[in-house]
């Protein structure tokens, strides 16, 4: 008798745990092998729970050494490389051709390695020592914005997701990401990668569900500092902008062709950074004494 395959229940990823949605709701997704996945239809409450853990993990994650964050991003790439075959199969089940699946997984891994390398470098490019006219030492440095709510690219299963998560977390932010609605399975498998990559719980939280339902909550939550939509949905983006004004969220519409190798760079990191300027007086005694 033929062996019966063990199928996976796809869950969501909040605070390092894999619960199903608290709402108990799901939406069916038919795979190429004709099996159906019952994907969690995440609720506002799931999002709010995720914001709580993302906020809780912000202080620890943002105060990690930049070098350490770089190592962790590199570790994600290592784990992903090791599970490449699984992702190839999953992408194919979502309708990718073999060639496109291979391209997407390889570019995703490379993008993680790319951003891992930026972890302790973008600060040096975007800081400044400011030559003020008074007797003060004055410098400006980037600091993470805080909790970022992200609606990932709908058209890709993995690459769009990684292309926003990587610059977001490498800069010390924490995030809640809504996966592609029609290609959600890879995002959850990627959560399994994150869970085994030394990424602290709560730094990345991944939900599956409906953008039409959730974009209002992603943009209106008062403890979210920035919101990103990677999709061109004029009416959603207007609502997102309006809701963002409730607590002056930073809004980014990153509708990019993530397959383009140029759609990466330190400016994706610094978009999600604040600039902090620090002043301190410089003593004036002994000015005339320097004669060497």
């Amino acid at each position, binding site marked *: 008798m033929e062996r019966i395959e063990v199928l996976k229940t796809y869950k969501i990823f909040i605070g390092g745990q894999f619960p199903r949605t608290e709402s108990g709701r799901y939406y069916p997704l038919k795979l190429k092998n004709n099996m159906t996945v019952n994907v969690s239809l995440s609720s506002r409450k799931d999002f709010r729970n995720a914001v709580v853990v993302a906020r809780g993990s912000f202080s620890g994650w943002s*105060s990690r050494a930049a070098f350490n964050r770089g190592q962790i991003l590199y570790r994600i790439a290592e784990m992903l490389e090791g599970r490449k075959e699984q992702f190839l199969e999953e992408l194919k089940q979502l309708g990718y051709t073999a060639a496109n699946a291979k391209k997407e997984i390889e570019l995703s891994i490379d993008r993680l390695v790319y951003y891992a390398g930026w972890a302790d470098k973008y600060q040096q*490019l975007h800081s*400044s020592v*400011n*030559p*003020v*006219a*008074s007797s*003060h030492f*004055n410098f*400006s440095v980037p*600091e993470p*914005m*805080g909790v970022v709510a992200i609606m990932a690219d709908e058209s890709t299963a993995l690459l769009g997701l990684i292309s926003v998560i990587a610059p977001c977390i490498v800069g010390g932010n924490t995030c809640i990401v809504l996966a592609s609605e029609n290609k959600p399975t890879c995002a959850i498998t990627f959560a399994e990668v994150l869970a085994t990559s030394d990424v602290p719980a709560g730094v990345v939280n991944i939900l599956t569900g409906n953008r039409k339902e959730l974009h209002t909550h992603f943009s209106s939550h008062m403890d979210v*500092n920035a919101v990103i939509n990677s999709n061109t949905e*004029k*009416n959603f*983006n*207007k*609502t*997102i*902008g*309006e809701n*963002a*004004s*409730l*607590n*002056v969220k*930073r*809004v980014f519409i990153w509708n990019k062709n993530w397959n383009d190798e140029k759609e990466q*760079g330190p*400016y994706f990191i610094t978009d999600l950074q*604040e*600039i*902090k*300027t*620090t*002043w*301190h*007086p410089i003593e004036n005694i002994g000015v005339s004494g320097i004669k060497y």
Partner: protein
Amino acid sequence: MAKKEKKNLEFFTDWKYAPAPESTDHISLKKQYDLFINGKFLKPNSGKYYDTINPATEEKIASIAEANEKDVDTAVKAAKTAYDKTWSKMPAKERAKYIFRIARLIQEKARELSVIETMNGGKAIRESRDIDIPLAANHFFYYAGWADKLEYAFPNRNPKSLGVAGQIIPWNFPLLMAAWKIAPALATGNTVVLKPAETTPLTCLKLAEIIQESGLPDGVVNIVTGFGPTGAALVNHPLVNKIAFTGSTGVGKWIQKSIAGTDKRLTLELGGKAANIIFEDAPINQAVEGIVNGIFFNQGHVCCAGSRLFVQESVADEVIQKLKDRLETLIVGDPMDKNTDIGAINSKMQLNKINEYIKIGINDGADMYQSSCSIPKKGFFVKPTLFLNTSQSHRISQEEIFGPVLAIQTFRTIEEVIEKANNIPYGLSAGVWTDKGSRIFNMTQKLRAGVIWANTYNKFDPTSPFGGYKESGFGREGGLHGLMPYLKF
């Protein structure tokens, strides 16, 4: 047992200074100002004018045109034409030379501008003369130099101007805010429509005259005066590519909402409620000066004012006594007097708002302490005010008052003060006073605010980026980082 109040200073001796008023002979002001559009002063389509007054005397200075939607449309179209036909085509080094000229003209007319700034806004002449006007000139000078060097500012990118920038500024630093807005916009190749605050249009209109004198091509800078609807018309004009706003968080949120879903770029410089934190090892006398400069600079009409004071419990009695003593020596009154520390409140409306908050503070149970100074009968004045025994939940500890009112709390541990300092929707600035270097960096890293002053307060410079976290807005003004909001890549 009655607590004996220890006085460190004796106030019964004669502390009076002879009056030292700045002369107003040297200035030239017209009786009526029109809108500055396309290089000329034009009568408003609205046909309406309003009075601008001196808040220290409540006397009228001049009539100011009120721009309606049609006037704003004319100004934006002038800016658009100037952008398309002239400014975007001009070599950057030539663009720079106009901006340098404006800087020089402000320096040449610094005294006149200082006097007018004080007449129209109520700030002490000492501050207009030593801070506002020189910084405004320096800002133009600084950004002029950037105009032909933009490719060095953003590695691996190709910066391009945006088009027409609509800029709306507040009344607390009228000419300086105009400089903060106009200088980087011009240096990056954009054209401008600027709306000054309704109560303080005069130095901006003098700047319009300076711009005429500089020979800047017509329409590159346009200045439209008026009230809220004038600003709203500018925000919503379809040909405006970028909005830069400095003002209240309430209006900032309204602007962000208004332009949602459009391609307009936005920077917001909004309110604040800064923590000024004094540790027990701080140089106390300097810290007291810093507290005074933090909250009483410009009558407290400062978005980054150190309006929440946190004093470590072990030195609280000493700091507060010294602060009370220092309060007594502050000279409140005629802004035109060179000895004056605290001038007039900018408007009747703001005066009412501050007095309302003082009432709220008392009703919420905080202990009020005011200087025993007298304030002029005429004009808008408030005594410098301290509130002792306030708590985090008091409205005077949470909301921006924008006046010379300080809410004081004490703390014991670093964890406690970081928590309290950050537990507010604002994040514009903060101050830290301690002699311990490692503690300074611990604090400056943990405070969620855009500008941190350590062992100093309320310092500004054209090279130094300024701007907030959280509900204090986004984008930076000043320095290299201040170029970014006016460029696309």
